[in-house]
């Protein structure tokens, strides 16, 4: 072991012009070569876990693509993909049918499921850290129903058409979700250290109010439109055409990157507001930023898939148990697991009751509800 002189000699990073340099750190540091084996997240562990998860996600996607009303084997799939890539036309009718099923129906849908799961789980992680509440989730807190209300209003007033080639629905969803987040956050900010259960109650109340308004909107619509809206509300993945899907993906990816840039800050925010500020974080600005991005992601996701609940709560929880609390791994790992979860749930939803289809929101709620109760009842010692 050699003593590292690194910190004692290096001056503190130069502050801005407005302030003169403050004295450099005074505590001398002796060197330790491997002080924390297994106690902290290292870059190598990050790559191993993320690599493994990505591989599993890819394999699961292949499985999900195979299943459906018509089974498509791997060989067939490979042929369809190669012919699509190299522009070869299918030579017979079954090949064309298979190609349509795979490329026009299943692939966009599986991809959309993955993307929505990724976003919901990521937003869940961010909200949990921000509100220091392990039960926070866009669905439970009423952010999803706020977004759904925004989208319903847009549909009611017929602004569901496109603005600048992009659907206006994600933006209305964003506004609705933002409104819900602001209400929850105002509550949390008014009473400095708000008990977890009060935040949940705020979510329950918001959910009730927003649901009532959505029901009201649905009831004054013409029946066939309101039926479509109810199906969407229960959470269903109906893939849009490729251009719209691409636009949505870009929108969501930008949001995800913005969120991922905050991973280390999320770690610090989980310590509490004052410790975070004393570690040099502009907490107000950071919170506002993360809330905005969360509302952005939730709004867009809700506008395409309705209210798919509990992914934002279950997935981060389960992943945290396995990989630890460091958001540098927790956020991307939860994102991948969330994507896989929704992809599989949707495959179950569309294959188990052929020819009818179960809204995927029902499946996630059936999985998530009991888990929520479990956390609330059996793990309440941790949540006090």
């Amino acid at each position, binding site marked *: 072991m050699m003593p590292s002189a690194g910190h004692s000699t290096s001056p503190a990073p130069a502050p801005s012009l407005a302030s003169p340099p403050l004295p450099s750190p005074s505590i001398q540091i002796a060197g330790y070569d491997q002080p924390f084996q297994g106690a*902290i997240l290292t870059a190598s562990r990050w790559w191993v876990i993320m690599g493994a998860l990505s591989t599993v996600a890819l394999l699961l996607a292949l499985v999900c693509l195979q299943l459906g009303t018509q089974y498509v084997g791997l060989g067939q799939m490979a042929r369809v993909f190669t012919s699509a890539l190299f522009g070869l036309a299918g030579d017979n009718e079954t090949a064309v049918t298979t190609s349509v099923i795979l490329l026009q129906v299943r692939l966009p849908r599986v991809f959309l499921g993955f993307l929505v799961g990724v976003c919901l789980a990521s937003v869940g992680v961010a909200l949990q850290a921000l509100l220091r509440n392990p039960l926070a989730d866009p669905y439970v807190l009423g952010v999803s129903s706020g977004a759904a209300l925004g989208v319903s209003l847009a549909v009611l007033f017929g602004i569901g058409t496109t603005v600048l080639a992009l659907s206006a629905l994600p933006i209305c969803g964003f506004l609705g979700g933002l409104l819900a987040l602001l209400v929850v956050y105002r509550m949390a900010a008014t009473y400095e250290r708000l008990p977890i259960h009060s935040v949940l109650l705020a979510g329950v109340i918001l959910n009730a109010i927003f649901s009532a308004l959505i029901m009201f909107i649905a009831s004054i619509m013409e029946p066939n439109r309101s039926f479509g809206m109810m199906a969407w509300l229960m959470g269903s993945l109906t893939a849009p055409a490729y251009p719209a899907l691409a636009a949505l993906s870009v929108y969501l990816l930008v949001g995800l990157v913005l969120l991922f840039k905050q991973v280390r800050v999320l770690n610090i925010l989980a310590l509490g507001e004052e410790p975070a500020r*004393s570690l040099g974080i502009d907490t107000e600005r950071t919170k506002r930023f993360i809330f905005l991005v969360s509302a952005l992601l939730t709004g867009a996701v809700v506008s395409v898939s309705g209210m798919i609940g509990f992914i934002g709560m279950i997935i981060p929880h389960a992943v945290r148990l396995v990989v630890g609390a460091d958001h540098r791994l927790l956020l991307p790992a939860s994102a991948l697991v969330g994507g896989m979860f929704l992809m599989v749930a949707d495959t179950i939803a569309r294959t188990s009751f052929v020819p009818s289809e179960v809204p995927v929101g029902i499946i996630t709620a059936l999985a998530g509800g009991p888990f929520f109760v479990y956390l609330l009842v059996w793990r309440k010692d941790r949540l006090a």
Partner: protein
Amino acid sequence: MSSPIGQAPTVEAAVSSGRSGAHAYDVQGLFFCYGKLRAHDVRWVLRDVNLHVEAGEILGIVGPNGSGKTSLLKLLAKLAAAQQGDIALFGTSLAGLSQEDMARTVAFVPQESAQMFPFTVAETVLMGRFPHRRRTRWNLGFGWEDRDDCAAAAQAMATMDISHLAPRAVTDLSGGERQRTMIARALAQTPRVLLLDEPTAFLDLQHQIEICSVLRRLRDDHGLTVVIVSHDLNLASQYCDRIVMIKEGAVRSVGTPSEVMSVEVLREVYGCEVLIDPHPESGLPRITLPRQYVPFNV
């Protein structure tokens, strides 16, 4: 706001001389209240506080509940802003310092911390390295800790005697262990000034003494300046170089423990009679409850 150029010698002096009387903090005419300042009915939490903290001293802030001790500490940490008055850190007004500049110089340990998530102790201590992170635009906010960071954290953990707890989750620790983890996090920040809010409140006798000795050692060896809010008058008297006694938001008395801890001052501030005699070892004032206050004593 003070001029940057004129301050440089003061800063240099503070660094090199340690305990030569340079001031870590200068507090002048401080008025503070929570919430918005209204013209009528202002309930000041702090009223006209003037004091200084010398570089390399342990300063204790004592006083009854609700007297404004914690508020003063938060103002020193720039976690709250005063309505009037000025605080200077090594000659530089806090108003001119960003929260980040502060974080590289001043570490703050809150009274209690409620961590909901199972971060390990090592991870928590390493969070203290956040102000020293390298900034690059393209690391997507990941910024892995380097060897220096790990070394600083390991040193801090050894100092607080929590090295063996490194892989444990902070949510599973006892109150005392968690408190020591939080102090270690502050030490990992390699601060020049350490602000502690009731650091010994959750600790047993052994760890109380241990932490106080560690603070003295850090002061002696590294010139660390410590400001400590405490309810424990005896602890403050034995371990602090100087004591500030606060009553209803105003400074009642400042000085060495022997100067501040008098029967008259304590009667006035706390409204009760105490006995004060010299500590058998140090000769510093020792505060004990008089017999008539002990219930059920025949």
